[in-house]
């Protein structure tokens, strides 16, 4: 099951043709060399502390975390740039990532102490001067030849802590660099790249631990969330996401995830999927990490009766021990590749007159979920795309009401019936992060309107042998648009406004107290919208598709907005009608920074 299967591992496969590959070894033209022994750890490292990271959502002079705060609300209280003056915003500078390595730039910049740190495609990390855009240093991971070629080459961002800037690489290493020099402080192997493991998410740092998920692995991996000591890179705990597998804490077995064989037949839990490749969020109020999990394997759901816990779920995890506090399964017994990894964003709101600690997720499966984040209790699930075929809705307990006619059939030796399924496996929303405005109380969700024809395909081949896969065709639902940016009121599920875009949306969203919402488009624009009405107020074409996540901060009394430009991600891979919407888009690789003109 080709694409579907692959998506377990990587959602954003970089896609466009490259020709004239220059061959084998990757020159490490950055100063660091991962093969060398780690440098001694400095005793006291000046720079962001745990407290700084926890307070990063209100620190307007820096961007210290992926998501602009541990809860990843992507909301800034800044108002210098606002709905009244954003039309005047102009570029301050642009910085190229250079080289022939382009493809998707899905990174979110980190800004600290006059430096903008961005990760680039092909496991590169750049430090740019935040005032001039001049490159200070570049680290280029030495990727091995044997790296799993199908995997994407994007990277979504870095984490900063003390003297370190930390990011993951395509060969499944986690690398801590000195943030001033780019020299390697430590470099740890997370998993075996030669077995297909990879790493593309932004790591997060909570209480002195780097916390991250896993991605890749061709043959039935299981998902894991892990924590390492930020100063040494040593493993502290490991938590499998699939029931029946054993966790680790401080070098010893800790507890089993869930209950053995409660929702899986036979030994399938040992390679049941549930990868956590997009990373997580953290809520200091409840001391919980929230990690979404990937869909179960094998792909054909008829082979694995049961709910298949905890795939396509969200897990609340104790960052100190790696113990699971609660779970909620978005798509029990998934049969459509509705990966559940999308970000779960903690927020507070009043429901039926009662102030509550909540969390929200916009799922691949087309529903926008609100849960009580203190206990995982289901509050609501409302459609955020226009067509959903696989379920008619959710009952009061939070179980989907499936439409049995729209589940793909068991594997057979003959071409099976075609099922039209919406959303497509690329999801009502894919990896691109949404934002929550504390000013409007609304979520701003980058969504896509597409479905897929799917059928059993008897004549396919895998690893040199016959295989029973599934054939599928992704189809846009409408002629004039695929992407839709939607403002959703999480207390009612009602959609307040929407902006339609011809190409699929594949970039993250930022919202500010200046009544603004920013997001990028594959057509190359960074756009600004009125957060209350959805009116488009400003746009600028960056020269290549925008699939990164914008950020904003204040520097020398002025407010800046930055975003990565560089077309790629999963979209260009899919042929047919979707390809038509994006075929004229050129590749790139630049950091763009904007501000208002000086008065």
């Amino acid at each position, binding site marked *: *099951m*080709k*694409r579907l*299967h*692959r998506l377990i591992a990587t959602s954003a496969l*970089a896609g466009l*043709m*490259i*020709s*004239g*590959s*220059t*061959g*084998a070894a*990757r020159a490490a033209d950055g100063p660091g060399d991962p093969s060398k022994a780690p440098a001694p750890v400095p005793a006291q490292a000046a720079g962001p502390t745990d407290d700084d990271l926890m307070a990063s959502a209100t620190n307007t002079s820096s961007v210290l975390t992926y998501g602009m705060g541990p809860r990843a609300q992507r909301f800034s209280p800044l108002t210098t740039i606002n709905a009244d003056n954003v039309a005047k915003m102009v570029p301050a500078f642009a910085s190229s990532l250079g080289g022939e390595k382009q*493809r998707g730039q899905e990174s979110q910049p980190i800004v600290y102490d006059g430096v903008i740190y961005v990760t680039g495609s*092909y496991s590169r990390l750049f430090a740019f001067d935040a005032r001039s855009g001049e490159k200070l240093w570049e680290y280029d991971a030495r990727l091995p*030849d*044997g*790296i*799993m*070629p*199908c*995997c*994407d*080459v994007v990277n979504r961002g870095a984490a900063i802590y003390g003297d370190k800037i930390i990011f993951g690489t*395509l060969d499944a290493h986690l690398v801590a660099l000195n943030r001033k020099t780019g020299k390697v402080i430590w470099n740890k192997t997370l998993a075996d790249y*030669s*077995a*297909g493991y990879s790493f593309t998410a932004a790591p997060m740092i909570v209480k002195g631990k780097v916390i991250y998920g896993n991605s890749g692995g*061709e*043959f*039935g991996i299981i998902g894991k969330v892990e924590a390492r000591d930020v100063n040494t890179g040593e493993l502290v705990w490991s938590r499998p996401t699939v029931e029946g597998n054993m966790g680790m804490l401080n070098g010893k077995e800790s507890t089993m995830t869930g209950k053995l064989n409660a929702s899986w*037949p*036979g*030994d*399938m839990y*040992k*390679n049941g999927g549930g990868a956590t490749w997009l990373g997580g969020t953290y809520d200091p109020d409840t001391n919980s990490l929230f990690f979404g999990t990937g869909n179960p*394997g*094998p792909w*054909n759901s*008829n*082979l694995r*009766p049961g709910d298949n816990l905890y795939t396509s779920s969200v897990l609340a995890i104790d960052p100190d021990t790696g113990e699971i506090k609660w779970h909620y399964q978005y798509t029990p017994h998934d049969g459509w590749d509705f990966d559940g990894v999308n970000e779960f964003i903690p927020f507070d709101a009043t429901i039926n007159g009662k102030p509550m600690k909540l969390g929200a997720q916009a799922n691949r499966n087309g529903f926008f979920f609100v849960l009580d984040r203190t206990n995982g209790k289901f509050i609501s699930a409302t459609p955020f795309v226009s067509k959903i075929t696989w379920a008619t809705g959710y009952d009061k307990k939070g179980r989907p009401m499936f439409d049995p006619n729209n589940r793909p059939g*068991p*594997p057979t*030796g003959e071409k099976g019936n075609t099922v039209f399924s919406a959303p497509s496996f690329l999801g009502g929303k894919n990896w691109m992060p949404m934002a929550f405005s504390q000013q409007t109380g609304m979520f701003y969700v980058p969504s896509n309107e597409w479905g897929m024809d799917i059928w059993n395909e*008897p*004549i*396919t*081949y*895998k*690893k*040199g*042998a*016959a*295989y*029973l*896969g599934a054939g599928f065709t992704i189809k846009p639902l409408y002629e004039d648009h695929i992407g839709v940016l939607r403002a959703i009121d999480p207390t009612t599920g009602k959609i307040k406004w929407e902006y339609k875009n011809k190409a699929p949306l594949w970039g993250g969203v930022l919202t500010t107290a200046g009544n603004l919402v920013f997001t990028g488009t594959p057509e190359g624009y960074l756009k600004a919208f009125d957060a209350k009405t959805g009116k488009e107020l400003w746009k600028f074409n960056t020269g290549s598709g925008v699939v990164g996540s914008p950020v904003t901060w204040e520097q020398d009394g002025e407010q800046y907005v930055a975003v990565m430009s560089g077309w790629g991600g999963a979209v260009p891979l899919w042929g047919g009608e979707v390809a038509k919407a994006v075929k004229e888009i050129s590749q790139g690789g630049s950091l763009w920074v904007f501000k208002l003109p000086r008065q």
Partner: protein
Amino acid sequence: MSAILSRRGALAAIGGALAGAVIGVPGAWASPLDKVKAKGILTVAVYKDYEPWSWMAEGRLVGIDVDIADLLAQSIGVRADVRQFLAGDDLADDLRNMVWKGTVVGAPPCDLMMHVPVDRQLQIDNDRAVIAGPYYRENFGMACNRETTDCEVPPPQLKGKRLVVETASIPDMYLSGAFGGSLRGDVRHVYTGADAVAAVASGDADATVATRAQIEHGMTPGGRVIERKGMVPLIFNPGWNVGFAVRDDSRDLADELEKQMAAIIGDGRMKAIFARYGVVHRDPILS
């Protein structure tokens, strides 16, 4: 076969012209066969962890496909540089990465990829590769532990036996899905078909379904493993021919290697290679 060949030839011609024009490969007008001879090396891609075809044993890459690649290279007067690669999600990924485009991180494609199913639809769907040189007929069989299991029973009667199978394969779908899924709870999953047969051979399992080559390779005279004589009922697939692939601009290389392959099969060298790995060579079924 001839219809497939002529269609393939036409596709290759069109694709080749496009490749030369669009990609602008240096020396695109030199014959690929001449280029291989000039550099003296035939780069060959084989699957990683694919016993008995290509796998690492005692630090060395060995296997039937490795030996055939060596012999093919020799037959055109060059040396084989055999590289193993991790299988993608399907053959289209493998052909793209190893034959006509190269990997996304920049590793260039090889001159030749071994163990490509010779299939009309696969060729049509992957027209940037030329699939040729069928050298073996593969199909699925069942192997059992003779001490514990009658291998000729109707498969539903294997309920309660310790079954083992390569994960995410047709044999996996068969054992986990057929007969109403009644065997599902008895199935243990391993990484390769060879591992599954080895589990039966060591007594850790009672039965498996795997390819004939994997089964025969895992059998030893007087050992535990026996092969089911009858057909495996309702196995989804009657078998397929195994060949090789080259890039669509390398038709002359494919023609030459196909000719050499026929000679290797014809004079018994192929049978000898297979015999080294305990596998009976079966001629491809040309229809």
